[in-house]
């Protein structure tokens, strides 16, 4: 476009030639600012890391349902449950079908690790064995926060569980072993 301008206006004389020589040079400068120097704005990527101390878990106490007496003549599907805090539920009709006594208690574990870190707890079901076999279903907290003293005194949490009894369940002592896994979330 500038070249076309100059071609027509050169007829006006030397002074106009000089003027358009300047404007042509200006046009060249303007054309020189092409996208070849395009620069992206600085974009912030982020780098993240979470640093943890090693996590340790240790058993504090074993789970115990206490003593369960099968008092009903004929029944099945009676569930005995102990909560994570130790509250016992002795079947659907306590004292009639089942009688529970003794000193029931939940399992307890201690975690030590990084302060205020959240830890995921998993504990799969397993069998109690003895005169027969009883399926045990653990009841563990999904997560535990280690709190402000997680790296020193740590935190203790409970695991309860349940078993299902029938009048035909062989009497005797049943035992089993927990598999508890703790991992930083």
């Amino acid at each position, binding site marked *: 476009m500038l070249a076309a301008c100059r071609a027509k206006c050169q007829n006006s004389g030397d002074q106009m030639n000089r003027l358009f020589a300047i404007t042509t040079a200006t046009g060249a400068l303007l054309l020189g600012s092409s996208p070849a120097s395009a620069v992206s704005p600085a974009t912030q990527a982020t780098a993240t890391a979470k*640093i943890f*101390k090693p996590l340790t878990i240790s058993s504090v106490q074993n789970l115990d349902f206490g003593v369960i007496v099968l008092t009903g003549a004929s029944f099945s599907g009676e569930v005995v449950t102990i909560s994570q805090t130790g509250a016992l539920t002795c079947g659907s009709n306590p004292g009639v079908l089942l009688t529970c006594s003794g000193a029931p208690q939940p399992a307890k574990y201690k975690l030590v690790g990084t302060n205020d870190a959240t830890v995921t707890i998993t504990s799969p079901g397993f069998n109690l064995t003895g005169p027969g076999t009883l399926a045990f279903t653990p009841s563990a907290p999904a997560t535990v926060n280690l709190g402000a003293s997680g790296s020193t005194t740590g935190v203790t949490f409970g695991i309860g569980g349940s078993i299902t009894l029938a009048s035909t369940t062989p009497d005797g002592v049943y035992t089993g072993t927990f598999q508890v896994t703790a991992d930083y979330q």
Partner: protein
Amino acid sequence: MGLLKSHAFLFAAAIAMIQVSSLVDAQCRLCEQPTTTAVPEGTSSGDVDLQIETELSFDRLILMGAGVGAAIIRPDGATSTEGAVMQVGPRAMVGSVLVHGEPNRAVRVDLPRRIDLFSVGGGRLTLDDVSTDLSSTPHLDAAGNLSFRFGGKLIISGDADGPYRGDLPITVEYQ
């Protein structure tokens, strides 16, 4: 003298035309029909931009004791540890970036070689040896795209547990 005034006037006019390019355009429209061709859709405008596709994440690092250690994520995604760092988390991710601009253009990508990561409590870690999988002469492809990945070496010392975060500015320009 009249000629001098005339020169001065012309020079002032020229300066005015330099400073206001739109006036030059207006004058030229008297000489030639302006062209108003639309830029075809999909044609690059000449800008180059970049998008962060994934952030660099070391996930969780287990630090044994209070010694010095390091966690490394290479641009190919491989991870390793040194010293007191026992383990890099399973969800660790290499950073990745998508650049878009004019097809087949050579570009230069600038990343800092070292940045600091900070925790809320004021702790500081250093991410060193920041590197990419870019070739020595990176080019946008025929579609105007270029993807690359970056990693680095996170150096950890002392009682440094907690979450850390740092910013890594990236710029791209045409060569």
